[in-house]
């Protein structure tokens, strides 16, 4: 049980680091879909091994939303944009370094949890939390709207992973609410970004700095 879950979490973390590394947004999108897939599998295995049929259903729903629906929406958002960022972006070396530091920070922060719990999956919790922190960092360094949304979604995945590992999922209604919210956020974001692109002619972050002071 612990071996399977920590392996899957570790794989998830590696994929997250890959997302940080990749510059072109289609590549990032595919990696995000893969990460979501890994998390869905994690949910399913937990459901089977820990004897919680609800988790399997949860993993299935997660799969449908995060691997099928949301990437298609993101693809629609990014369709008009150039594949590689025109301006030479920050070298990914520094961002990877910061991601590493964040992993260490995640371990440090999650120490009190390790002492309290006796769950078999306790070992993987810091990994999930690191995934969340890197997602947040991705959001911070996003160069355009798509980068921000992607960062947010990775952050969301990290939290979902943490919820799975720490508490075997949340009560039904809360979980449903969270999925519904995430889905609505992405749909609304698509609408808003569409309007912003029409009005501001671009969704690059430096172009969206008119409101100051």
């Amino acid at each position: 049980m612990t071996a399977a879950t920590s392996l899957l979490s570790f794989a998830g973390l590696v994929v997250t680091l890959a997302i940080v590394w990749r510059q072109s947004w289609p590549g990032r999108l595919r990696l995000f879909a893969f990460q979501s897939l890994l998390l869905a599998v994690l949910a399913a295995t937990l459901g089977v091994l820990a004897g919680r049929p609800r988790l399997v259903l949860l993993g299935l729903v997660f799969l449908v939303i995060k691997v099928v629906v949301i990437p298609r929406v993101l693809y629609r958002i990014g369709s008009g944009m150039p594949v590689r960022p025109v301006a030479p972006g920050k070298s990914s070396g520094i961002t990877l370094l910061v991601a590493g530091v964040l992993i260490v920070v995640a371990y440090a922060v999650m120490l009190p949890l390790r002492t309290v719990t006796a769950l078999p999956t306790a070992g993987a919790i810091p990994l999930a939390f690191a995934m969340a922190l890197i997602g947040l960092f991705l959001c911070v360094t996003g160069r355009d709207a798509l980068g921000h949304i992607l960062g947010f979604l990775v952050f969301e995945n990290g939290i979902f992973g943490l919820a799975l590992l720490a508490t075997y999922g949340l009560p039904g209604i809360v979980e449903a609410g969270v999925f519904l919210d995430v889905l609505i956020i992405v749909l609304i974001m698509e609408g808003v970004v569409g309007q912003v692109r029409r009005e501001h002619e671009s969704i690059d972050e430096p172009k969206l700095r008119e409101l100051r002071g």
Partner: protein
Amino acid sequence: MSVLLFGLAAAGGALATVVGVAGMLGAGGSLSLPGLVPLGGIALSLDPLGGLFLAMVGTTAIPASIYAIGYAGGERRGVLAYLAFVSAMGLVPLAANVMTFLIAWELMSLASYFLVLHDRDDPESVDAAWLYAVMSQAGLACLLAGMLLLTAATGSATFADWASAAPDLTPGARVLPLLLLGLGFASKAGVIPLHVWLPRAHPAAPSHVSALMSGVMVKLGIYGLVRASLDWLSPTPVWWGAAVLLAGAVSAVVGILYAVVERDLKRLLAFSSIENVGVILIGLGAGLVFRGVGLGGLAVLAIAAALYHAVNHAAFKSLLFLGAGAVVHATGTRNMNALGGLVTRMPWTAGCFVFGAAAIAALPPLNGFVSEWLIFQALLQNVQMARLELNLTFTFGLAALALTSGLTLACFVKAAGITFLAVPRSDAAARAHEAPVSMRAAMVLLAGACVFLGLGPTLVLPALARLAGPLVGAELPALGDGLTVRISGEFAALSPVALTVVLGAALLAPLVALRLLRASHRTRWYETWACGRMLQTARMEYTATAFSNPFKRVFDFFYRPEKRLDIEFHPDSRFFVERIEYANPTRPLFEEWLYEPALAALSRVAALTRRVQSGSANAYLAYILAALLLLLVLA
């Protein structure tokens, strides 16, 4: 409509006077509405000290309201604020707990803010109102902090409990509230360096309001200081008394120095209010030091003298402000260099103003002299204290008071002389007309009050001493019999009534002598002698700036005057002049060194933080991440 409301205000003033005087004579009383407001609800209570200041509010409100009927005419805008202002001032001395006091205090400031904004379109008075509001808000912050600290120390929010818990306060729990309350009340009283708002706010308000503000609102700052030093934190340390005395001395000297060189009539009166507050604080400081050293009798004398000067100042300063208001009402300008020759056009106002000037310059038969004489005697009594450093402080106080009284004389000779006498310097002054009846009645009423206060120290002083006695906790010193006021036995004595009789007789003597020596009483009217030149114009007269020139040269280290001279030469030759403009403005010391740097620094920091909202979404998200990590580390 406004006449009705001002009448209501006058009636309210009368009621306040009656209640105040009753309070002074010992009739207590309290009213409490618990639950209306947190911290103990609204509670009012009347005690002798509160009664005195309530009476002062009342007696000044009556003539001011009568005056306002004539001054404001049909204008309805300022009336409600005026009513709120007077009633709030009435409530302050009666407040019995923290919330009531703060609400009354702030309502007073708010109402007077709107009254200062009387002339809304003039940017200068809008700035003055802003500075006034910010300074009174800062004062309120100090008061709030001081009072809440005391509430925490004594566990209750009512002043009566503070008075009973005062003796056993630990020194630590006494000094901080004392400083904060002192700062808060001093900023309202206009003590230097917290005075910058006063000379800009008082002149901007209509004259009956400036009279109330200068005459009474400033005294409520004094009321607060007396209440804090003698009632709430009663055995205050000796250094506090010395500090109050020195602050008073500095305020008196600096206040009058600025008043002497002032060109604007109402600003001159505002600065002179600062000076008189300084004189009151000298008396109060002396009283506190005497009590600290243990000379109870002298403490009662000094505090009674200070309160007496507060009452006197309320009377003659209101008279002067109402007079100035009549001048502004008639000529439309406050600049003394454009006035003059009003004595023939406005005889009543001129008479009352000269009378007020004589009173404030402490000329003998009037009330200014009596209270200044009492404060001098109180300071002279420091010989009974064996401590050298206190004697020197008192000597410094004496010298400051003497210099101030000399400069006050000069200042008010200028104010009365340049404004009213000789030839009008502008056609506005030439067209001036006498003030309406209600304004003149108010002024005469106040002049009467000055005469009564001048002739009646033997009545007023014992009443004030009975009021100060229980505060200081000492027995009343012997204050002489019906006619004369005696200070500690044979040291000094003064009997204004006898003095007035002798002066009257002395005035008759020259008339009789001239009749006896058969002097001729023929009088011929002719032009003033001007070295034989034919035309005698108003431009040859001395102006206010010229009059104050000797002081500017003597005290130039204080004024640091700038000499601005621009000459327009005649186009044809360099030796003939079209126009010469000479200005010799003084540079305000405190604004330049204390307030402007502070405001500039604040604006720089504000501009710096503006960059936080830079507009970039990444930066905003970075703030969230940084906040998260920081809190994780710190918490």
